[in-house]
């Protein structure tokens, strides 16, 4: 077990709002090895980004981690002070935010913004060392070094996104979180960025957490994956296994609702209904109101939600496993 870079155990996080506590992350547990790429997939609002934010503890002020632990390379992150966390961010875990290409400061040159991050973590580095570092990062993501002297508005979406990846790598992180890094991009550019991320990950032996709602991208990018629904992981395991024999009804629906350009044209299934409210949650399986074939037990919501191991390393929620 020692080769795990990141171990998340029974993580719970909620947002305190005027209408009550919104439990966005519920009993999430997973671990990631060095060089592994781990996918988090689910529809909007299922808690994917909340998990990412909890790992870095960058959540909004009203968010509270109520229990659980996050261990990065033997160091417990929950309960660290702000100044200790600052050391971990970017150095231990960095993130490519959703729509990050719009997150550049428009009045500062791209190179200078990356330099700022490096300076914070390696104050003793000389200016020329930092420049060299940024040049090598740009080379890695196929950007010309002259881009350092450009302002964000001078770059295309794909170039900005490449620069964001360079920024995320600037302080030699062990784990990189990519939160929907390609959603705003065109298919061809998306394809290039995905390749870039894969190449860099293999080159540096990074552990990658890839968050997306697009199951086709998850299929291509990840070794292991977790399917999230309403704040919980409902299925977890090797990507190839989950695609081949999905055990949870929600996973099956996600797979059957994705169009593809290869193979025979299939009738796609749609997922009816809305995800449940995360305030005052009911007992039992939260997916049962939308489940296409609920048994009586599911509908009564008498089965407690809990992941059970079906095959080595492949877990699914027990309610669906029992239904078969």
């Amino acid at each position, binding site marked *: 077990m020692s080769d795990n870079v990141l171990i998340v155990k029974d993580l719970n996080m909620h947002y305190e709002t005027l209408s009550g506590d919104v439990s966005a992350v519920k009993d999430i547990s997973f671990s990631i090895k060095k060089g592994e790429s781990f996918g988090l997939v689910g*529809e*909007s609002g299922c808690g994917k980004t909340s998990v990412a934010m909890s790992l870095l503890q960058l959540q909004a002020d009203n968010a509270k981690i109520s229990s659980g632990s996050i261990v990065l390379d033997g160091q417990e992150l929950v309960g660290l002070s702000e100044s200790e966390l600052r050391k971990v961010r970017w150095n231990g875990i960095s993130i490519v935010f959703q729509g990050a290409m719009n997150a550049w400061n428009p009045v500062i040159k791209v190179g200078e913004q990356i330099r700022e991050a490096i300076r914070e973590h390696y104050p003793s580095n000389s200016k020329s060392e930092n420049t060299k570092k940024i040049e090598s990062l740009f080379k890695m993501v196929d950007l010309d070094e002259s881009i350092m002297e450009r302002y964000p508005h001078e770059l295309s979406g794909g170039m900005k996104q490449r620069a964001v990846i360079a920024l995320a790598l600037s302080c030699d992180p062990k784990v990189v979180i990519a939160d929907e890094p390609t959603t705003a991009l*065109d*298919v*061809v*550019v*998306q*394809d290039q960025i*995905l*390749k870039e991320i894969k190449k860099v990950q293999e080159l540096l032996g990074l552990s990658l957490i890839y968050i997306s*709602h*697009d*199951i*086709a*991208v998850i*299929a*291509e990018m990840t070794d292991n994956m977790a399917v999230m629904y309403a704040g919980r992981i409902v299925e977890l395991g090797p*990507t*190839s296994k989950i*695609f*081949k024999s999905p055990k949870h009804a929600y996973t099956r*629906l*996600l*797979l059957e*609702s*994705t*169009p*593809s*350009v*290869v*193979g025979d*044209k299939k009738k*796609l*299934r*749609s*997922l*009816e209904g*809305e995800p449940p409210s995360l305030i005052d949650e009911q007992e039992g399986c939260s997916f049962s109101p939308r489940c296409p074939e609920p048994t009586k037990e599911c509908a009564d919501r008498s089965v407690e939600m809990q992941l059970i191991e079906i095959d080595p390393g492949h877990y699914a929620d027990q309610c669906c496993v029992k239904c078969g």
Partner: protein
Amino acid sequence: MSKNLIEVKNLEKYFEVSSGLFGRNKGVVKAVDGISFNIPFGESLGLVGQSGCGKTTTARSLCLLDPKTNGDVSFYNQESDSMQSIDDLDENELKKFRRNIQMIFQDPYESLNPRWTIKDIILEPLNIHNIGELNDREEAVVEILKTVGLTPPENYLPRYPHELSGGQRQRVSIARTLIMKPKFVICDEPTSMLDVSIRISIMDLMLNLARDLEVSYLYITHDLAVARYMCNRIAVMFNGKIVEIAETEELLKNPIHPYTKRLISSIPVPDPSYDRVVYDLDYDELDSIIAKDTENIGMVDIGNEHFVATHDVKGLL
């Protein structure tokens, strides 16, 4: 050959741009550069290509939101049972034309007036075109809400767009479009802003409505997988030109143009065991070949109504 609903010949849309001090350097951006296609009755055409290739400009020129620079667009005229060019329409005919051609926009968060109720939004086109009595209009709104699956309609009529989810809003957009009983609907990436789980239900809704109400779509998207699900034929656009057009399955199985190959091979496949090989394409080379070929408006038929642009792409094939 069945009858055509719309015929487009050599459509061009140029934008003048100026740069430099006081805009002294004038230039022309050829956003749509001589494209031609037909859409037969009851068929849907997918228009695919990268951002900025002129898909949306084509759509806007077709429905006269932006006047075209050159070329001819003709629609089937029921009264005379013949094709009629949109340039020949007088004011009355133009109004009728606009009833028959409608558009669904990409972003349901920005295309609905936030200060109007759902009822006002869907009622507006009926009021503008003065269709039916007031009571009938309200009934029509209730009916169309049922058709697009917003039931019970009474719950939705008095609500405002911000109270609805993305999928529900897009249903409102579709309702607003279809209440005019159009023959032709231009859909500009109507599902790209929606979550995966609702995307299919919106696409299925549109397919069912196309069948029941005999509507043809021009479906604009950058995702070939979506176009495959929605359309009978697909046209691939690159830098303002259509480079390949064919029946959907034919195009996917037997792509000829290098850009089509590139586009198809860029789509992620939802199967981890599938080894996707990306077709390598030198854009600059392709660009210069296409740019040199100024006369090429022609497409060549390679069989099965599969057309490929005639410019010399042998070097790239």
